């Protein structure tokens, strides 16, 4: 890790650690926008992490931005940090500027196809994007859409859309956005990014977030098993508990390694195989890890009052978003089948 990376990590750890307390997370679940948190993130430069410094951003590398994202996820920060980065990246690819405030991207489902056609001097964008993260909170939605056989990015002010509420199981906003809007020609620009690449970057983000959330579930569990007394001793003294904690830690370590793979891929070639590997492995770690964390906590961890669910519900959501394990492992597996026995090692695993 470079010195900058360490600084970003420590700064994010302090910021999110201080601000994301139970009260803030409870309020966010009720739909209250965490204004103070977002302002603090703005001040720290985390809301324009990927935007060039001369355009008012922080100009972080993708790797360093991922470090901040991992820490934010560790503290279950209820704000679109990853989505804003995705939007910045998409906007930059098309040379579009970003308005102030939170941002998001659409569509995030493979099954949602929007359409865009020329109208007057500009364009008309139509269609419905389901499960769009934080749409109602966003200043703009950056839409990736195909038109005239090319990929375009459209910058759409949220007020131009119709938004129906919705959430993932962690109560993070995932809304249905209906578009039927006239866009000025300078709100639309072509991009080299296609739907597969956007999905890959999104999956890399969620992989990193899973690693963050799982490390928190591990911390909470390690702390709890050393405090909780049954049969006259801390339950951490029981071998079954020790072994479950060992497995939780092992899966958390694997998720972190997967997140490192995803970050490196996002920073370089966005190789869908590497990202598929990472999302697949992290998704599995999320499933196993969340189950072990809950098992160790007993009934108290099953309550809304305890904080464990802020992490585990995010794990259950993020493992599915931008492609669940089956989607990504199918891609990795097909590449292996195409490479064949002789090629799988040399062309894929150790290429």
């Amino acid at each position, binding site marked *: 890790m470079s010195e900058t990376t360490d600084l970003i990590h420590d700064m994010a750890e302090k910021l999110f650690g201080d601000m994301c307390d139970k009260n803030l997370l409870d309020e966010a679940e009720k739909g209250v926008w965490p204004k103070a948190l977002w302002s603090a993130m703005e001040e720290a430069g985390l809301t324009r992490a990927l935007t060039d410094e001369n355009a008012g951003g922080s100009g972080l590398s993708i790797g360093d931005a991922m470090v901040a994202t991992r820490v934010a996820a560790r503290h279950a920060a209820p704000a679109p940090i990853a989505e804003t980065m995705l939007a910045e990246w998409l906007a930059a690819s098309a040379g579009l500027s970003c308005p102030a405030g939170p941002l998001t991207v659409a569509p995030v489902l493979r099954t949602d196809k929007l359409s865009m056609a020329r109208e007057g001097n500009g364009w008309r964008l139509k269609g419905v994007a389901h499960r769009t993260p934080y749409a109602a909170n966003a200043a703009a939605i950056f839409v990736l859409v195909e038109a005239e056989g090319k990929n375009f990015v459209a910058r759409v002010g949220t007020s131009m859309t119709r938004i129906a509420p919705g959430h993932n199981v962690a109560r993070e906003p995932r809304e249905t956005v209906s578009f039927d809007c006239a866009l000025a020609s300078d709100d639309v620009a072509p991009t080299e990014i296609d739907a597969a690449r956007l999905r890959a970057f999104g999956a890399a983000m969620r992989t990193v977030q899973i690693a963050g959330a799982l490390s928190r579930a591990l911390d909470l569990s390690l702390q709890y098993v050393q405090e909780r007394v049954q049969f006259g001793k801390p339950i951490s003294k029981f071998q079954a508990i020790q072994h479950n904690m060992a497995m939780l830690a092992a899966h958390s370590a694997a998720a972190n390694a997967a997140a490192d793979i995803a970050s490196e891929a996002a920073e370089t070639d966005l190789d869908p195989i590497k990202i*598929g*590997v990472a999302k697949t*492995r992290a998704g599995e770690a999320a499933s196993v890890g969340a189950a072990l964390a809950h098992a160790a906590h007993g009934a108290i961890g099953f309550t809304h009052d305890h904080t464990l669910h802020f992490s585990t519900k995010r794990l259950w959501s993020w493992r599915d978003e931008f492609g669940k394990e089956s989607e990504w492992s199918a891609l990795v597996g097909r590449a292996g089948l195409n490479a064949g*026995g002789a090629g799988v*090692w040399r062309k894929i695993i150790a290429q």
Partner: protein
Amino acid sequence: MAHLNFAPPPPFNETTEKLRADVRAFLDRELVGMTPAERARSWSGRDVAFSRKMADRGWIGMTWPKKYGGHERSALERYVVLEEMLAAGAPVGAHWIADRQSGPSILKFGTEEQRQTIVPRIAKGECFFCIGMSEPNSGSDLAATRTRAKKVDGGFLVNGQKIWTSGAHVSHYMILFCRTDTTGEDRHAGVSQFIVDMKTPGIVIRPIVDLSGEHHFNEVFFEDVFIPEGALLGQLGDGWKQVTNELSFERSGPDRFLSTFTLLVETLNALGPDANERAAIALGRVTSHLMVLRRMSRSVAGMLQRGEDPAVQASVVKELGTTLEQEIPEIVRMLVDAEPDYGADNPLVAVLAHNMMHAPSFSLRGGTREILRGIIARGLGLR
């Protein structure tokens, strides 16, 4: 809070990738005609001539000092050679243990004379080792060792028995772990390691046939076996510390997740690009696990290179890695409509039979699953 940190592995570079190309060219030449069933033996497959050829190329004792016959290459370069060998199913078994742990132990704890007389021969592929740890009543509980080396004039007299000793019948030396002091209370004190010449009078080796009908491991009996003072490895009574160090080398390498790689290869060959979606998902999952384990294992190689102690991380790699190795035959069973058959001409069902029958041993040899989980839990501060 105690986290298991896996630092980013040292990156591959021009040197490692040039080496990788050399190893691949060598394997393409040398392994022609080797059947999948032979490759499935992985690092249990032995071929002394092959070991010599590797030694000629400087691929045994790669990281050791030149003055002891080594090649002073990086841990990462060694890693590249190991993983390429295992992925190809090369018969590396003859020298595996000596290269992986006995040589490094002698270099670290041995006397100058031991280093000079033994280590160069290991690097030449002329000298093979076995591990004398387990006993009938001392398996996971290694400190319960009862084999005894008693101080006598000019050396030690050994009495006792080892068991499950892989390759004892084809090894030149054993690193013997045994008790040298029976007086103390502390079970971890009073144990030592010796470099024992397997031709020493009084040593009797009896084969043990495994469930698949093969002979790899043995019982080794010691009856008034005299070993000279110079055979003591490290300090008298330091055996526990030394053996713990040795096990870090034993636990973290690519041999802990690639043992059943040949089965993945044969499955991909058998199913082909038109395989159904279910197969693609299952095999993609296996591939994903392998790639993440590879990164974690390289991270441990980096720690070893820097002289850090990765005992806990090594246990994580072995635990996740052997679990995957054991899962692979179970997954393949569900993808192919055929029964495992050891002697079949069909390479897939022959390899499946081999891997399925050997799978139980993966989470026993080198420390059982339960023992590894205990080590990880200790690393987390729970015990």
